[in-house]
């Protein structure tokens, strides 16, 4: 092996010098691209060239300095598989981390695909399933509600503020799902429901998730428990975006993430409290807080990149799930996308939100 190198040592060194010079020049070009703000190159082009140049350096060092170009292919095989696995992990991880943010689009896409017959639509895992087996008459009835919105928009964004969308599962296997709009006042409906002693979490009425352990309330309870938001969509929004920290049961993680169960209703008892919880979603929260006798110094990220409807849904789920509904003030009204939208562009920081919280009169 060494004798083989002895024969062209000077040639080898000259090659190394050339490679080193090219590496140095590339590094300078990369530096120059950033330092001298080359205006005629767009951001996309700059990004492309930076990555292309560093890739060139990467390949040159490996091929020439590490001799992979002329060495046994076994080495290349091992190293390449390591790179592929590493890059694959990165891609999969990125996809997982960004998936929740694109859920509304995925749901929208699912709605535009023709659905299988009733019943099967339950299994999409996000408590979605609306749209399954909706008859043409029902579709026409909803779309002629005077708001001129396609059914898919009604399902995605929620019904008009003063109306309620009710999607009822089939009573028998031969029946279809029924979808109807009604206009009860939420407060009145709740006042009606509360004396009945039904403190069960808001049932996933529109489409019960397969995992929902709560016994389905009877038909009468469903009729009175109607809220002007879709509990299934609310639960799906919460599960996708909040449950990893605050947990599916709203209990949080002691010392790290505060509980929402038995706590959220005290936050939203006042208008200032409603403003605060919306702000905490839009702008995040940073600072030490105390909930139920425990101190929390974790960080709440800003969720403003999510849609108004998704944010309103998460708030409504937190307000009504886990027995929270029974703790709400009688005049509580569900959060609406409009209420969330009104607080966008507030330009708050996570620290400002902390001040908002401190200003609340919390027990």
């Amino acid at each position, binding site marked *: *092996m*060494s004798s083989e*190198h*002895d024969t062209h*040592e000077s040639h*080898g*060194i000259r090659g*190394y*010098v050339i*490679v*080193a010079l090219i*590496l*140095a020049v590339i*590094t*300078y070009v*990369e*530096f120059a*691209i*950033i*330092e001298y*703000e080359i205006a005629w190159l767009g*951001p996309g082009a*700059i*990004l492309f060239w*930076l*990555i292309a*140049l*560093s890739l060139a*350096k*990467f390949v040159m*060092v*490996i091929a*020439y*300095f*590490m001799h992979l170009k002329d060495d*046994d292919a*076994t*080495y290349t095989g*091992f*190293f390449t*598989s*390591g*790179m592929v*696995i*590493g*890059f694959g*992990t*990165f891609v999969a*991880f*990125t996809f997982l*981390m960004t998936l929740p943010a694109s859920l509304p689009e995925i749901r929208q896409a699912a709605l535009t695909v023709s659905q299988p017959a009733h019943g099967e639509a339950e299994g999409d895992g996000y408590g979605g399933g609306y749209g399954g087996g909706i008859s043409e008459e029902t579709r026409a009835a909803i779309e002629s509600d005077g708001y001129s919105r396609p059914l898919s928009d009604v399902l995605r964004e929620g019904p008009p503020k003063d109306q309620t969308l009710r999607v009822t599962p089939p009573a028998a296997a031969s029946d279809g799902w029924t979808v109807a709009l009604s206009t009860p006042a939420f407060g009145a409906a709740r006042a009606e429901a509360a004396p009945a002693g039904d403190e069960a979490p808001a049932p996933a009425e529109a489409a019960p998730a397969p995992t929902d352990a709560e016994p389905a309330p009877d038909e009468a309870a469903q009729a009175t428990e109607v809220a002007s938001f879709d509990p299934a969509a609310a639960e799906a929004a919460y599960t996708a975006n909040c449950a990893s920290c605050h947990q599916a049961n709203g209990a949080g993680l002691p010392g790290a993430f505060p509980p929402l169960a038995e706590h959220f209703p005290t936050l939203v008892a006042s208008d200032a409290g409603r403003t605060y919880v919306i702000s905490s979603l839009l702008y*995040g929260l*940073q600072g030490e807080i105390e909930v139920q006798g425990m101190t929390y110094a974790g*960080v709440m*990220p*800003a969720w403003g990149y999510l849609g108004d409807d998704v944010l309103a849904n998460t708030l409504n789920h937190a307000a009504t799930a886990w027995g929270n509904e029974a703790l709400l003030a009688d005049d509580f009204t569900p959060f609406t996308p409009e209420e969330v939208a009104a607080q966008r562009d507030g330009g708050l*920081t*996570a*620290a400002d939100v902390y001040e908002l919280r401190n200003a609340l009169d919390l027990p």
Partner: protein
Amino acid sequence: MAADAPATATPSVPAHGWRSSKLPDMKLMMWIFLASDIMFFGTLIGTYLIYKGRSLTGPYPQDVLDIPLTTVSTFVLLMSSFLMVIALDALKRNDIGKFRLWTFGVAFFGAIFLGFQVYEFNHFVDLGLTLQGNLFGTTFYVLTGTHGVHVAIGVLWLLSIVVASYVRPWTSKDATNLEVAGLYWHFVDVVWIVIFTLVYLVDFVPGAGG
């Protein structure tokens, strides 16, 4: 290959046991290690990129990163890689004096790089960027710190080679020992090439920063 049963032994199999490969064990092991190490760095870089732009409070990358300074330290590391191949070439030609000089040079350049990093970390902490302060600090320090540890290990390894060459004079027969250390060193350089672009430069692309 490794699954071949001893029964299928060929004349190339030595009597004292069979080998799965005619490649030098040390070199093969180093490449396998590097394959695992690139997965390790892949996840660290991936984590940095995923959390990029999600810090709630400053300092943000544009507030602290110093491109001219890091360009110089990147250049130093690149040139150390060049010295590494020159040192290996010298050893293969049995030019022990040059081999020692260049190997020491590699370690010296590596130490300069570490010096830049120590200065940088100190400066960043003064600016308020800490490991626990925000997501940028956490992911940045873990990634560049892990790389710095790799460089430090490389410097110690190369210095130990220089010392060893005085204890027992090295010849061209020892070239594989140096080559393996060189593979490790070049790999550390390659990782820095990626970090320099994805962590440092990209933050200053107009509109693409976070």
